[in-house]
C-alpha cells in the first residue's frame, strides 16, 4: 500500500470521485491550473479538463451559491474555499441556503455538495487564514461538519462526504497536509459520517478532539502512559455534527473523566457543547468536570506568537492530570 500524506490522500479521493461520477465537479479559486494553493487539486485540471475543474472568479459567496444551484439541479459540486477564515463571506449561502434546501422544499430538492477548506493554525499564515470556526457550523442544522486528522481518514471521509445526499463542510487541517504519511489503500473506500473513532482505548480519562488537535492528543496520550501511568481513551470525532453522542457518552461513563481539545477560541467553541452534553448524559459518572484545552478568547494571534497561543501537548497533559487528580 502506498504511504501518502493527507494532501495526497485528498487528491486521490477527488480524482476517484471525478472518475466515478460524471456529476462531480470541482470549483474554487485557483483550483485549476495552479492545483490549489495547497496543491490538493493538483493534476485534476489536466486530467479532467476545464469543464470539471473550474477556476472561479474571486468570490466565495458566488462559489457556494452557484454550488447550491448546481446541486439542486443534479450536479455534485465540490467547492474549495481557499482558507477557512474566508468562510464568513459564504455564511448566508451555507446556513440559510445549502443547509435548508431539503427542509424548505419538504424533500423535493436537496443540495448534495461538499465545501472543502483548509483550517487551523501553525503554519504562520497571514491574518484571517488560520481561524478555527468549525463551531459556527455545528449550530446549523442541515449540514454536516466533518474533519479528518490523518491520511487514511482524509480519503475515506472525503469520499463519503461527496456521496452524502446533504451538504457537508469538510475541514482539512492545514498544518497536517504534509506533516506525515499513512498507508492509504488505492481503491475508493468510505468511512461513514456521523461515527466517532475510538483511536485508543483506555480507562482513566477520555481525551476528545478532531482534526489538527489529534496530533497533540496522541502525543499527550503516549506521554500520559509512559510518564504518568495514566491510561487515556482517545476519541477522534471525525464528524462534529451530527454528533456521535453514544460513543462519546459511553466512553466517559467508563473513564468518568473527559478533556476536550480544540484550537478555536474557548468561548462557544465546540468544546462547550461537548462539555454540556457529557455533563448532562454522564452526570452521575463524572469524577471531575469536563476540562477544555483551547485557544484563548482573543482573535487568532499575529503569527509571531501563534505557537505560544495555540494549545500544545503539555497543556493536554496538564489538563488530563488535573482531571485524573481532581
Amino acid at each position, binding site marked *: 500500500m502506498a504511504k501518502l500524506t493527507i494532501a495526497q490522500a485528498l487528491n486521490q479521493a477527488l480524482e476517484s470521485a471525478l472518475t466515478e461520477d460524471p456529476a462531480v465537479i470541482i470549483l474554487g479559486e485557483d483550483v485549476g491550473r495552479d492545483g490549489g494553493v495547497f496543491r490538493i487539486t493538483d493534476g485534476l485540471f489536466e486530467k479532467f479538463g476545464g469543464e470539471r475543474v473550474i477556476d472561479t472568479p474571486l468570490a466565495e459567496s458566488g462559489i457556494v451559491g452557484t454550488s447550491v444551484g448546481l446541486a439542486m439541479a443534479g450536479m455534485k*459540486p465540490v467547492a474549495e474555499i481557499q482558507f477557512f477564515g474566508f468562510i464568513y463571506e459564504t455564511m448566508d449561502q451555507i446556513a440559510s441556503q445549502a443547509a435548508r434546501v431539503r427542509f424548505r422544499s419538504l424533500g423535493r*430538492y436537496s443540495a448534495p455538495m461538499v465545501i472543502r477548506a483548509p483550517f487551523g493554525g501553525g503554519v504562520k499564515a497571514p491574518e484571517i487564514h488560520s481561524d478555527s470556526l468549525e463551531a459556527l457550523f455545528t449550530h446549523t442544522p442541515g449540514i454536516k461538519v466533518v474533519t479528518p486528522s490523518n491520511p487514511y481518514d482524509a480519503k475515506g471521509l472525503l469520499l463519503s462526504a461527496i456521496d452524502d445526499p446533504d451538504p457537508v463542510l469538510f475541514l482539512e487541517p492545514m498544518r497536517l497536509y504534509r506533516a506525515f504519511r499513512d498507508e492509504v489503500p488505492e481503491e475508493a473506500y468510505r468511512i461513514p459520517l456521523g461515527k466517532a473513532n475510538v483511536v485508543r482505548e483506555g480507562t482513566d480519562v477520555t481525551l476528545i478532539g478532531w482534526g489538527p488537535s489529534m496530533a497533540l492528543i496522541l502525543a499527550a496520550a503516549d506521554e500520559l502512559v509512559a510518564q504518568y501511568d495514566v491510561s487515556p481513551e482517545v476519541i477522534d470525532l471525525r464528524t462534529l455534527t451530527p454528533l456521535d453522542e453514544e460513543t462519546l457518552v459511553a466512553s466517559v461513563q467508563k473513564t468518568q473523566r473527559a478533556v476536550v481539545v480544540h484550537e478555536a477560541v474557548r468561548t462557544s467553541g465546540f468544546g462547550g457543547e461537548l462539555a454540556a452534553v457529557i455533563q448532562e448524559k454522564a452526570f452521575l459518572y463524572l469524577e471531575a468536570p469536563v476540562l477544555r484545552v483551547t485557544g484563548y478568547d482573543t482573535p487568532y494571534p499575529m503569527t509571531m506568537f501563534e505557537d505560544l497561543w495555540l494549545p500544545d501537548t503539555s497543556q493536554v497533559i496538564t489538563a488530563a492530570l488535573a482531571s485524573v487528580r481532581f
Partner: protein
Amino acid sequence: MTDGMEMFPLIQRLDEEGKLVGELGFLSVADLRETYETMRFLRTFDERAWNLQRQGVIGTYAPFKGQEAAQMGAVAALNESDWLVPTYRDWAASYLRGVPMEHGLFFSKGHPSLGDIPTGKQVLPAQVVIAAQTLHGVGVAWATKLRHEAAATVVTFGDGATSQGDFHEAMNFASVLEVPLIFFCENNQWAISVPLSQQMHAETIAQRSIAYGIEGYRVDGNDYIAVANLMKELTERVRAGEGPFLVEAVTYRLGAHTTADDPGKYRASEEEDLWIRRDPLLRLETWLRGEGQLSDDDVVAIDAESERKVEEILANFHEALDISPLVLFDNVYAEVPTGLASQRAQFEARVKEMGA
C-alpha cells in the same frame, strides 16, 4: 457620463393607452385573450390573499398587483426543460410554470409545503433572502450547460436586489461562465420604502449589464406583449449559447410591500395614481375591447370563473392544513440522525400532550 435611458431605450409594444405600437410577435390574439383571463384571475387571487391576511387566515403576504405582465411575460417563452428561480413575490410567474397557486398561501401561512414544488416542474422554492437566488440561478443554468441540455433558466429579482453583493457575484459568474441564464429584474421602483433613486445612482438597471460585458434590455414591464416577445427572443438565444442576458422590466408595485407595510408613510399618492393608469391588466383589456375580443359580459364571466378558481385554491389550502408537525424533523437530513430522532420523539410527545 453614460446616459442609461438613451443607451437602453424602453422597449414597448402596447402603450399606456392600450394602443398597439409594435408587432404581436409570436403571440396570437387568442393567446392574448387567454393571457388576459389568466391575469384577471391572478389579480383576483392577489386581492383575495390580501384579505385572507386581514382575516387572519394567512400571515404576511407580498402582493404582486401591478407586476402581472412582467411576471407572466418573464416565463411566457419557457418550456418544460427550462427553469424558473423566483422570489417571495413571484406567485404569478411560478403559477404559470406549474406551481399550484395555494403555494402562495402556504408561504404566507408558514406551511411546511411552501417549497414542495410538484415533481417535474422545474421551479425553485420562493426565495426570501434578497438576491441569494441569483446565484442559484447561475448554478442551475450551469448544470444544464454542463449536461448540454439546451435549457433556459430565468431568475427573477427586484430592483432592491441589485444592490446586494450576491447579485454582482451572480452576474459576474454568469458572464464568465457564459451560462444560459436570463436575469429578469422586476423593477417595481421601490424596495419597501426606498425608491430606486436612493437604491442606486445609475439611471437604469439595464446599464449594469455593461459592467459584465453582456447584453442588457429595458422593457416596459406593464406591457405583456413586449416582455413576452423579448423573453421569447432571449430564451432562444440563451438556449443557443448566447447568454447570459440582463432584462430590466420597468413596472410598479401597486400595493403595499407586504400586508405588514403602509406605503402611505413613504410615497406620494400622485405617483400611485400615475401607475394605476399604467396598470398592465387595464392596458390589455383596453386593447382587447378595441379589437372586439372582449365584452362586458365576457369580463363578468371571467370574474366568475376567477372566483371559482380562487375558491378551489382555498379549498386545497384548507385541506393541506392537516399536516403533521413532525415533518419538521424529517427533512433536515436525508436520514434523521440519532440525536435528532430522540428530539423528534420528545417533540411528538409534546405535540400529543398539547393536542395539536
